[in-house]
């Protein structure tokens, strides 16, 4: 059965023979074409010995705001490179004198590279130098003038912490990705880094033939050329006019504003001050400028919205309040007595209001930001529950924001204290501090804006993001980034209602009254956090409108003073601009105190200022 008959085998042998002969004939024809028909052309090339592989760099994608306005563009810039294998000492010296560089520097750059692959020598050449190089081309075999694109920012565009910058590939990066060539530009910080592969595009290759003097004889085999593919354009969620306005509010300050759209997690504004001019880091970076930025004590290179961590101060009372209510540790009716101070062991700690708030329940304690209430509440909650709720609200971990180098902040746990301070590291005093957002607790402004988003959404959280979509010019296609949504479970509607209502009262008549916007119901919470670097940090977080929030934001002014006095007005301006596209004229700046008549008088200067742990 299985063995073929003689005849079948013969037939199959014929099929095999014919296939083999046809393919060999194809090879013969191929060799005939190259060695006989095309022999002369190839012989010429082989005489010069000079096929050169050149890289065609793609145009880097632009960055645009939500309306398509260009924020970061690509412009041509000339640079000179050399073919190490064709260089003579004389050429190096001539080149060095034209571009005004030390010949030793050029030799350093090509040391150990004896290839036909060009090595970049100097970038950002001026036109006068380019024309001189062109004129003396015959004296400069192996020297190439090439063009690349460089980042360009239209007038009025700053926000370096959003865009970041591009720079030359360093050794580590080249090792990780062998595709990258020395001298090539890749994203180093910010969006340029996060979306580098999309923005960068794909390099092309073309082959030219050159003679012994380095004259270009043209492309030898166009079929083998590969066109570079331009990078995709990146569209952001921000409206840059609004971003500019938000930045203007912080001009002379140190701090950050992060405003999110709670309906989808899109960034509305992302401000970090002080900053620097992104033009300083575009193209060739001078060492002087870099040194200056690095050593500036105001740290302009720091993206405060995501990289800096601060104690959140009283804004964090919200978390303690939710934990206590949800766990049933207290009821809304439970009250504490605030005489203006609180005795913890041998220590006396004070409320910011030295006169005291009297007998106070949780709602009023939030509205009036009573510290003594929360010291006592903190002790009742305990570290485990407090840490559990902090983590539930995603503190102590990165938000997944699409800008690199985000800090995680810190939610200290019992184990943390023991580890750091030894077996007796944990004391109850810590808890009193943590409950009012002081002590070891550290958060980023973005995390605080995210907290405002949770409360606004009653537990729904969308991953904050600033990139809206990529626009692929080649395919004329928009690639949207999916919205990542999660839900914080286990917090009841009643608790949210109480907290939200209290936050509304904070702005309506409490410590955050300077954050109120006419015609819009705003909910917020002030914070004034002590820190070892001097004056207190001013915090304010808010969302609005109360019923269907469309903006959730966090403002911090480093060493600015009281949150209600300093941060809340900034938030108010942000919201006014957002809702009315202008600042509303304010006929009077006076607090509506009618409802607070029964309460002790509050001095504006003292708003939300707390003094704790001063006396023994």
């Amino acid at each position, binding site marked *: 059965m*299985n*063995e073929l008959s003689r005849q079948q085998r013969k037939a199959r*042998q014929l099929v095999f023979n014919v296939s083999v002969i046809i393919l060999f004939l194809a090879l013969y024809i191929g*060799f005939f074409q190259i060695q006989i028909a095309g022999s002369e052309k190839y012989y010429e090339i082989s005489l010069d*010995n000079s*096929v050169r592989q050149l890289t065609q760099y793609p145009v880097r994608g632009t960055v645009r705001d939500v309306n398509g306005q260009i924020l970061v563009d690509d412009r041509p810039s000339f640079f000179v490179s050399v073919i190490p294998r064709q260089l003579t000492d004389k050429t190096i010296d001539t080149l060095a004198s034209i571009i005004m560089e030390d010949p030793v520097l050029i030799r350093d750059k090509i040391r150990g590279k004896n290839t036909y692959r060009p090595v970049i020598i100097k970038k950002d050449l001026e036109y006068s130098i380019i024309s001189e190089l062109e004129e003396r081309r015959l004296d400069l075999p192996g020297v190439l003038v090439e063009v690349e694109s460089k980042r360009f920012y239209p007038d009025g565009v700053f926000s370096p912490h959003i865009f970041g910058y591009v720079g030359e590939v360093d050794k580590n990066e080249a090792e990780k990705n062998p595709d990258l060539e020395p001298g090539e530009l890749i994203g180093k910080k910010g969006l340029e880094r996060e979306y580098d592969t999309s923005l960068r595009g794909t390099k092309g*290759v073309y082959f030219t033939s050159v003679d012994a003097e380095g004259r270009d004889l043209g492309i030898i085999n166009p079929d083998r050329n590969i066109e570079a593919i331009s990078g995709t354009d990146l569209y952001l969620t921000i409206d840059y006019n609004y971003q500019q306005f938000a930045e203007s509010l912080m001009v002379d300050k140190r701090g950050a504003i992060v405003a999110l759209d709670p309906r989808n997690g899109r960034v509305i504004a992302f401000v970090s001050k002080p900053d620097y001019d992104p033009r300083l880091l575009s193209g060739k970076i001078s060492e002087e400028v870099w040194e200056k930025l690095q050593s500036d004590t105001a740290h302009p290179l720091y993206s405060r919205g995501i990289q800096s961590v601060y104690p959140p101060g009283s804004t964090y009372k919200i978390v303690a309040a939710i934990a206590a209510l949800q766990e049933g540790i207290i009821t809304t009716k439970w009250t504490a007595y605030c005489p203006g101070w609180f005795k913890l062991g041998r220590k006396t700690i004070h409320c910011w209001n030295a006169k005291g708030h009297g007998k106070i329940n949780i709602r009023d304690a939030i509205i009036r930001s009573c510290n003594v209430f929360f010291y006592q509440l903190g002790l009742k909650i305990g570290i485990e529950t407090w840490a559990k709720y902090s983590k539930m609200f995603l503190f102590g971990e990165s938000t997944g924001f699409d800008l690199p180098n985000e800090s995680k902040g810190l939610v200290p746990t019992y184990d943390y204290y023991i580890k750091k301070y030894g077996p007796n590291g944990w004391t109850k005093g810590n808890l009193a501090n943590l409950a009012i957002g002081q002590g070891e607790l550290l958060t980023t402004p973005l995390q605080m804006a995210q907290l405002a988003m949770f409360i606004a959404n009653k537990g729904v959280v969308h991953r904050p993001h600033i990139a809206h979509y990529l626009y692929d010019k080649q395919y004329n296609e928009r690639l949207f980034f999916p919205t990542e949504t999660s839900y914080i479970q286990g917090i009841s509607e009643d608790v949210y209602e109480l907290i939200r209502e209290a936050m509304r009262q904070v702005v309506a008549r409490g410590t955050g009254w300077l954050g109120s916007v006419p015609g819009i119901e705003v909910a917020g919470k002030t914070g004034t956090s002590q820190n070892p670097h001097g004056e207190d940090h001013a915090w304010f977080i808010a969302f609005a409108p109360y019923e269907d929030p469309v903006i959730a934001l966090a403002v911090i002014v480093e060493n600015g003073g009281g949150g209600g006095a300093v941060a809340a007005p900034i938030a108010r301006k942000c919201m006014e601009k957002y809702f009315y596209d202008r600042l509303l004229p304010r006929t009077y700046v006076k607090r509506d105190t009618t409802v607070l008549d029964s309460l002790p008088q509050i001095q504006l200067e003292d708003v939300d200022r707390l003094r704790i742990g001063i006396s023994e």
Partner: protein
Amino acid sequence: MPKYDYLTLGLILILVTIGCFAIFSATYSTTADENNFFSRQLLWCVLGVLVMIGVSFVSLKVINRFVYWFYLFCLFLLLLVFLIGKVGQGAERWLIVGPVYVQPSELAKLATILAVSKYLSDKYADVNKIKYFSTAVVLILIPFILIARQPDLGTALVFLALIIPLLYWAGLNWFNIFTILTPLLTMILSFSFWAFMILMISIVVVLTYSRRKPIVLVAVFLLNIGVGIATPYLWNQLRPYQQKRILTFVNPEKDPKGAGYQIIQSQVAIGSGGIWGKGYLKGSQTHLRFLPAQHTDFIFSVIGEEFGFIGVSFILLVFLMLILRFIHIAAMIRGQFESLTIIGIVTVLFFHTIINIGMTIGMAPVTGLPLPFLSYGGSSLVVNLMMVGVVLNVSRNKFIH
């Protein structure tokens, strides 16, 4: 006394000798230490020829008995390279045995051919039955997957290339071959509407005249339609970079990392050789080191430059004679096992030859497959000669005179 196949032996010795000369030229330089490629290859040649002659005298019964063990042993080695293997310059993996680097994927070729041949030469084996067909394919796919994951796709493809010739020789009928081949063709042509339509019409015509059961015809037709519709859809589901990765494999010259550069340099070398060549050791492209991997993958470019079209034609002729000779032997001998084995061997040698030589002039993709008997490399040379030894053995013992 059986006759020894001196024609085959002669052709092989010619190729191996030319290979040594070419390697000498490709690695020739004034500095002495670089020349140990030549002396090493010489050593491998001597060893390989001894192995070849040795294998040609081993009793076929002994070989037959150990076929499956040999196959399992090779699979074991292939698994072993994952654990303790060393990744080479390409994607291939090596085992280090003392001073010698071994590529188990080379040995696995012979082992797989023998195993499939033995399986299909069983008295009851009928390759047109699904059970025997699929078992034979699985025997080939196991080493294919292991090698593809190294990831040495070039060598792995050699295994895929074995499937159709082996099964066809084992008696697979034309209709089944048609059923295997058409979906592949459909996949390629599905991107052009008219090409796809013409193919579908041709398929319908062929099916109509095939006189099979209607249900089979409908199944084959629907399979092709399904593949034709699914392929462009799946392709569009891929992200551009994924598409690019696939295109780069199909057409590696488009890889900006330098396969295009290699081919152009190789074309320049071969083209500049002209009719008569530049003369031995006089190839300027070769000696200025313009050629990439000129002693391994691009050894044929060295020959093309130095010996010209005449030299190329001669070597192509030698390869052609060798391959036709092997097919002739396969057709003329007794025994299904022996005949199938030779078909497997000739397929491997032919595939390597066409792909490697085609690559040097840009007709085939750059896959890193060495040229049998000529490229530098011990594992490949010894295993190729071992396979020739098997052919010599069979032709000595089983020829129908």
